[in-house]
């Protein structure tokens, strides 16, 4: 069967191409004119005045921002950077005198160091001879290169200080106690890695300062019991300068090109990656252990249960 044919239009006088284009354009202009009429434009500008109502905004932020409890909670919970936080916290936990903000400041410094570190990597080659030249180039020719290097250097110092102070605060507030023992242990590893980051970075300018500091430092590895060629029982365990733990650290028996490369990879890739993973664990545990430990209501000696049970009776009224 033949498919039904659409009704044939009435035969018209044939129209020339130019006329058809003209007609078409008239139609299009007409359509735009209607869109662009005064009232429509006004309405649209009015809409732009509240950008949070635009599709663009909504696509990025997903929830309206209003001073309502629901919106405030969602603003935190639906944001990938903020969702580390709970929506609400204990009213006293925001007291600066309790945490000194030290954990957060340490984390911020880690971010600053990552940022400045990546910028430095654009100018740095981890090879003997070139490395030192790159630092000179950064210091003298790269726009803001000196500032960049200084910020990375002093940021690292500051991070060591704030990590210590953070640990000091955790001790003074007894925040390592059950259930936070494990997070404390994660913290100790983070402290060690922070120090190792500094140490591996020290060699990278390949100047006298770093070279001799790393020489002294890795000479200690030479003395490891069993694992170092000069350490107790090292020789008995078959250690020589060419197979002991120091050799593994330096990629050779002296601080040279291989040591520079290994330092670089530890400093720029390996340790930062491990730190990032552990930080995720650290923050996750802070949340899972019930948020910041305090400021908690004080407990009394007279409320301690008998020995054998670790728990303390709950504070009054709880």
């Amino acid at each position, binding site marked *: 069967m033949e498919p039904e044919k659409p009704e044939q239009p009435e035969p018209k006088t044939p129209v020339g191409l130019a006329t058809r284009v003209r007609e078409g354009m008239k139609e299009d202009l007409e359509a735009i004119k209607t869109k662009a009429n005064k009232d429509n434009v006004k309405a649209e500008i009015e809409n732009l005045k509240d950008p949070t109502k635009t599709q663009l905004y909504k696509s990025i932020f997903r929830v309206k921002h209003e001073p309502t409890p629901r919106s405030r909670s969602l603003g935190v919970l639906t944001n990938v950077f903020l969702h580390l936080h709970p*929506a609400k916290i204990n009213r006293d936990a925001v007291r600066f005198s309790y945490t000194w903000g030290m954990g957060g400041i340490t984390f911020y410094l880690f971010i600053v160091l990552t940022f400045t570190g990546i910028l430095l990597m654009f100018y740095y080659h981890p090879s003997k001879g070139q490395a030192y030249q790159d630092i000179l180039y950064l210091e003298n020719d790269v726009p803001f290169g000196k500032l960049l290097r200084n910020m990375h250097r002093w940021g690292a110092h500051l991070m060591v200080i704030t990590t210590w102070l953070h640990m000091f605060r955790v001790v003074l507030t007894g925040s390592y106690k059950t259930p936070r023992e494990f997070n404390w242990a994660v913290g100790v590893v983070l402290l*060690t890695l922070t120090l190792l980051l500094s140490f591996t970075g020290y060699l990278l300018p390949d100047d006298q300062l770093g070279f001799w500091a790393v020489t002294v430092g890795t000479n200690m590895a030479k003395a490891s019991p069993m694992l170092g060629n000069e350490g107790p029982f090292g020789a008995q365990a078959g250690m020589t300068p060419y197979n002991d733990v120091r050799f593994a650290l330096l990629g050779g028996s002296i601080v040279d090109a291989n040591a520079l490369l290994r330092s670089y990879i530890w400093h720029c890739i390996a340790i930062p990656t491990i730190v990032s993973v552990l930080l995720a664990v650290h923050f996750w545990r802070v949340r899972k252990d019930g948020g910041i430990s305090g400021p908690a209501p004080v407990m009394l000696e007279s409320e301690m249960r008998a020995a054998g049970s670790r728990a303390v009776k709950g504070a009054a009224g709880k």
Partner: protein
Amino acid sequence: MDWHQLWTIATLPDNIPIVAMLFLIPFFSWLGFRQAIANDRLIAQLEADPKLAKTHHRKTWPWQPNWTKELHVWPYLLRIEFLATLIVTIILYVWSITLNAPLEEPSNPNLTMNPSKAPWYFLGLQEMLVYFDPWIAGVVMPTLILIGLMVFPYVDANPLGSGYYTWKQRKIAIGAFLVGFATWVLLIIIGTFMRGPGWVWFWPGQTWDHNTVLYEVNRDLPDLVGITSQPWKGIFGAVVVGLFFALAGFVTHKLIMRKEFDKKILERTTLLQYLIFQFFAITVLWALPIKLLARQLFRIKYVMVTPWFNI
């Protein structure tokens, strides 16, 4: 007196952080202990008045009846965090604009730096090299310190003082930590300010003299008491080390048993927890300062000499 020398050390850009620490540590200690004292006062008051203890909200600041228990993170926490990052950024900018990171000559294996100092936070380790052989100072001690720190929560059986500043309820735990911390800071300060070329001791105000020749002789303890041949040196040393363990352990025990309250806490402590605490107290908290004093006061190099290793 050569104050210029001290000024040179203190204003070395890489040493600025430690000078800053001289202010930061006291400040934060004050901030913490001020709250500890206030809490301790409240605790004493509540212990004395059980009726008040039943109704009190148990914090040092006044309780407002209309307060909600919780706050929204947005904005109450986020604004603090934002402010903190802002302030840290400003500090870092000012610091980086005013002081330049050091850059020495290109590395040269044939030209030894003297003194060759690690960055300040490693000077504790480097200074320990004076008192112990490298395998102890560089490997065993750091390992003990780190493991000691990690087990700290697991051996502290005191259930009080979790989540608030207090001194009276946690004297031993806080005391032990502070002793270790103070020793560490002391080593760093010695390493930074007292050590010159050749790692020779120079008092602050003394000029670093590259030609100093030391006449002092460091002796081994066995030689001092007239034991000069193996295996007696080793055996004597083992006895001395054993005695040190016994004595330090005894003093530690006395220290953690001084108060009635401390005895109660000990009751809750398992034997394993107790032994681990003793081990780290003896090997880290006691051994470090004692070897330091033995060296500085009596010029004793080793207490135990064996053919394989010396302590």
